[in-house]
Structure formats: structure tokens, C-alpha cells
């Protein structure tokens, strides 16, 4: 897969991450649960890769590990060929400029006491400490503009914005370091469908304009189907199926993938009507 000239931007190799459970008795050995179990995939530059699965399947742990926020038990995460967990702390910090994260909850991920300018400019303080106030303000203004907000919005507080606008601010914060990879963990799950469409359009537009690479994590299959090139289906810490998105959705090979796809409600009343069907025994899943 990996030619010499087109090396993937992100390579995840055989990643394993355990969480320790509370010990059952004072002198007992604490047990652990394997949240991510031998996951490997790679994402080419400029592509978007989706990870779908239900809560508890390990997709958020995977995202956090790819971001270097959690340390794996074994396995490697290579960004542009550099192993995140083999780098010295300072070099990792500098490398962080290249990958940023957007979280699910636009209410919880922005500090309510900070003005938008400070929220967005915060990554710069670490990565480009030499910037003076005017340059910083200019850069914040440009970034706000690129996510469809106004430069004057920099002087407002997060609570003055709606959920969709807050998610734009969170995206602006991720963009300000001019990263190559954005890890988005359920970025539109908290939004109404009309606002969700606006944010998805913004993500697709940014991807085309800036050649960004996305790792897109979601439980919403229709969203993933719409915006990703490749997809991996996770179940109980493992990838059970992966491939080009349209192929996986059109012809799922794994029974779990099929049950996930079948469970998505279809906005067409002629296709299925639950109440009519109810007299027959309900189709159990899993």
C-alpha cells in the first residue's frame, strides 16, 4: 500500500491500550480492560478516514491515543513518519502544531471565562510564542473568517454563540496552528440537523481548500458515509471491517457492520413502518 513517494500522513500500527479497573479487594491485583486491541490503519494526506462504532467500542480512546493524549501499552502512531511516543516531550509539543482535535461538546470544550480571541489563540502561545499582540489578533481574525464567523466575534464570550457557532469556534482553534491532520471526535453529534449540515459543509470546504486530512469519529453512519473516503468499523476495541466508505456501506461483509447499517432509521415511510411490523416478533440485533 505504501509507495515510496506517497507515504501516508498518519499510520497507526497495532495499537493496544488498556485501562486499569479498580481493584476488587485491597490486596488483589487490579484487573484491566482492553479498550483498544491491536488496531492498525493508515490515512493518506488530504483524505478523510472515518471510524464508526457504538459507545464503549474504543473509538474515543483511539482518537485520544492518536492525539498523544493517552499512552498505548504497545503499538505505534506515526505522523509524517515520526513516532509520537518515541519523541522527546519538547519535540512532541512542537509536532502538535501539525495535528489538532475538535471535540464533541461545543459547550464543554470552550472555556466560558475566556473571550473567543483567547480561546482560539491559546495554541499559539505554546507553538509560536514570539507572536506579538497585533499579529496574533490578525491571525485570529483570519481564522474566524475562514470558518464563517466575523473577526469582531473575537471580543465576545462563548456563551453568546449558538451550538453551531461554538463548534465553528472549536474548529477555528484547531485550524489556527495550520495543522495537517484534524482528529474530530463526534463533532456534529450535539447539533440539530440543519446546523449539522452547516458544520459538515464547512468541514468539507476546509478539507478541499486547505488539503486537510481528517480522522472523523462518529456513531452516526449517515454522516460518516457522507464525508469520508475510507471507513473502519470498530467493535469491542477491534476493527472488524475497513475499506472505501461507499463499498463498505453498499456491501458490508461483517455481520456487525450489516446490523449497524440496518439499524439506521430511513427517512422514507414506505420503506418500513415500525408499527405495522410490531405484530411480528421484533428483529433482535447482535
Amino acid at each position: 500500500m505504501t509507495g515510496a513517494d506517497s507515504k501516508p500522513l498518519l499510520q497507526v500500527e497495532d495499537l493496544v491500550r488498556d485501562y486499569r479497573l479498580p481493584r476488587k479487594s485491597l490486596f488483589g491485583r487490579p484487573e484491566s480492560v482492553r479498550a483498544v486491541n491491536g488496531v492498525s490503519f493508515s490515512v493518506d494526506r488530504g483524505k478523510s478516514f472515518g471510524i464508526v462504532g457504538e459507545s464503549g467500542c474504543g473509538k474515543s480512546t483511539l482518537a485520544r491515543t492518536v492525539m498523544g493524549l493517552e499512552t498505548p501499552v504497545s503499538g505505534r502512531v506515526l505522523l509524517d513518519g515520526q513516532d509520537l511516543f518515541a519523541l522527546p516531550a519538547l519535540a512532541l509539543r512542537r509536532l502538535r502544531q501539525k495535528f489538532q482535535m475538535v471535540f464533541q461538546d461545543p459547550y464543554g470544550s470552550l472555556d466560558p471565562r475566556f473571550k473567543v480571541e483567547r480561546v482560539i489563540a491559546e495554541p499559539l502561545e505554546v507553538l509560536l510564542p514570539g507572536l506579538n499582540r497585533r499579529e496574533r489578533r490578525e491571525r485570529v481574525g483570519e481564522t474566524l473568517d475562514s470558518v464563517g464567523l466575523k473577526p469582531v466575534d473575537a471580543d465576545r464570550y462563548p456563551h453568546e454563540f449558538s451550538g453551531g457557532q461554538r463548534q465553528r469556534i472549536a474548529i477555528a482553534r484547531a485550524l489556527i496552528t495550520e495543522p495537517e491532520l484534524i482528529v474530530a471526535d463526534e463533532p456534529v453529534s450535539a447539533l440539530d440537523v440543519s446546523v449539522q449540515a452547516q458544520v459538515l459543509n464547512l468541514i468539507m470546504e476546509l478539507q478541499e481548500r486547505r488539503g486537510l486530512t481528517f480522522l472523523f469519529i462518529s456513531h452516526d453512519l449517515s454522516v460518516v458515509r457522507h464525508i469520508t473516503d475510507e471507513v473502519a468499523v470498530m467493535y469491542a476495541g477491534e476493527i472488524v471491517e475497513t475499506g472505501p466508505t461507499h463499498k463498505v456501506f453498499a456491501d458490508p461483509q461483517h455481520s456487525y457492520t450489516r446490523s449497524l447499517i440496518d439499524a439506521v432509521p430511513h427517512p422514507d415511510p414506505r420503506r418500513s413502518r415500525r408499527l405495522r411490523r410490531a405484530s411480528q416478533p421484533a428483529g433482535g440485533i447482535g
Partner: protein
Amino acid sequence: MTLLAIENLCVELDGPDGTLRLLDDVNLFLSKGRCLGLVGESGCGKSMTALAIMGLLPRGMRASGRILLEGEDLLSIGEDRLCGLRGRKMAMVFQEPMTALNPVVPIGRQVAEGLRLHLGLTRHEAELRAGKMLARVGLPVERFPLGLFPHQLSGGQRQRVVIAMALTCGPDLLVADEPTTALDVTVQAQILDLIAELVEEFDMGLVLITHDLGVVAESTDTMSVMYAGKVVEDGPTDEVFQRMAHPYTRGLFAAMPSHSSDLDATRKRLTTIPGRVPDASSRPSGCPFVARCSFATDQCSDAPPPLERLAHRHSASCFNLSRVEGL
């Protein structure tokens, strides 16, 4: 037979800047054994309607109009009578099962509470019936003892407990406010199947509130699309989906990511509804959708469009119905 009839329901709240109208002339009908879906974005008044039906509006809000449950007007009877009806005749399932359950009371006792209160059963009899109800919703006592606490259950199991609580006394009307929004898609399908089975088995009427058009399409007989405190389109679910007469209904539908697996559909720009739902304090005097509507004319800003009948039971409120449908 009409189970629930809401006539000209208005809900108002006195604020520092005058009276706000949160619900504006809402009319809804539901027969026994049927399911009515309420859809719209957040802030459109769906949950407010549910709370008004249950008589649970927050303090300071005034409801006017009529809410008839089997002919009895819930807005004119007192709190005592309402207490007798809630849980007995009508029950509600909330979105977030963890907050709807008491974390320090075992599930058996929570499900039995309504039985003891409404039917005067002893603790033993009540818990016996609670156990049966829990088994019916898929939590048999052998595997899920009545002494379990909510935190020992998964989200889907908790929602089953909430459903069991709602159904113990055999209500005629079930109001479910986003019952599956917090759940995974496969669990969502199981819970919706369960609710549909129970609605048929107990011959109840169901008001299902959701923002997911897919859920509405699969689970409801009739639907009402709400926008800014008003019903802007309602009718039998298949007819509404077929015609989508109101621009807002169309907008909601178009904003959904496509369900086709075509490679061409990937990364196509989605249609958006610009702007957002106006607050109750800043609603325009004309059509509430005017600022976000691509069909809007001068007429739309002047006066609110009346609900116009399109077919036997299908209506929509828009001045430009012919232009919208001409597309």
C-alpha cells in the same frame, strides 16, 4: 376514537420585556393505538408541548386553550386530579434515562412506586407486578434483580426501566420525549421496536418527540412539524413525506446526509437552512420562518400564514405552497 385533542394551545411566559408566547395556537389530534410524531429543531416547542400535556410546565408559564384527554380538559382540572391522571392515564418517557431515574433507589422500587400510589397495592404485590413489567420490557428478574441500582445498567437498559415505570399502571397515553437520542443506533432500534410493540399491546396512543426524520418515518402514523412554537405542517406521515409542502419540512429533509452509498454522493455539499430558530422574544410578526426561507415574499413578513388544508388530513401554513411544490 380520539384519545388526545389539543385545541388552540398557547403557552405564555411573562418576562422583563413583556409577555413571550412560547407555543402559539397548537392543534394536535391522536387516536388510540396510533403514534403522532412531533419534529423540529431544538427550541421549536416540542418538549414544551409534552410538558403542557403532562401538566408539568415550569412555574410562571400560563397555558390557554384546551388539552382534552378522553374528553377531559387537563387545563381546567386541578393539580389533585392531575396527580391522579399522571402515571395512571398518561405517562412520559424522558430523553436522558440517567436523570429520569433516582440513582439511590433500586429499580424494582422505582417501577413499583406508581402501582402503590395509584392502585394502592402493597409493597409485595407492587414489586411482583413491577418484576413482570420489567420482564416485559426485556429485563427478566433472574438476570436483572429488582434490587439493582440504575448505575449498574447500561443506557439502553435504563431506558427500558424508564419505559417500565411509565407503563406499570397501563396508561392510555404515552408521551416519549426524544426517548432514544442518548442511545446507540442498534439500541435505538431495539427501544423503538419495544415502544411500538407496547403501544399495540396496550392499545395506547403515543406522542413521539424527535428531531430525527428517520425515526418519524419508521415509527409514526401522523406527524406535526413544529417551528418557533407553531405547527407549520401536519398530516399522515407518508403524505407529509411525499409532498413536504412547507419549506421548513423540505429544509429539514434536505439537510440530512444522503442515504445513498453512491460514490458521487460523497462530499456533496448539504443543503442548509441558513440562520437559526428565532427566540420567543424576537419572533417576526409574519411567518416565523420568513428570515430563513428561500421562498419568502413581502406578504410573508406582513402576517402569519394560516394553516391551509391540502388534502383530507394534511395541512401546511405557507403563502407560497404552490411555488414550493412546483419545484
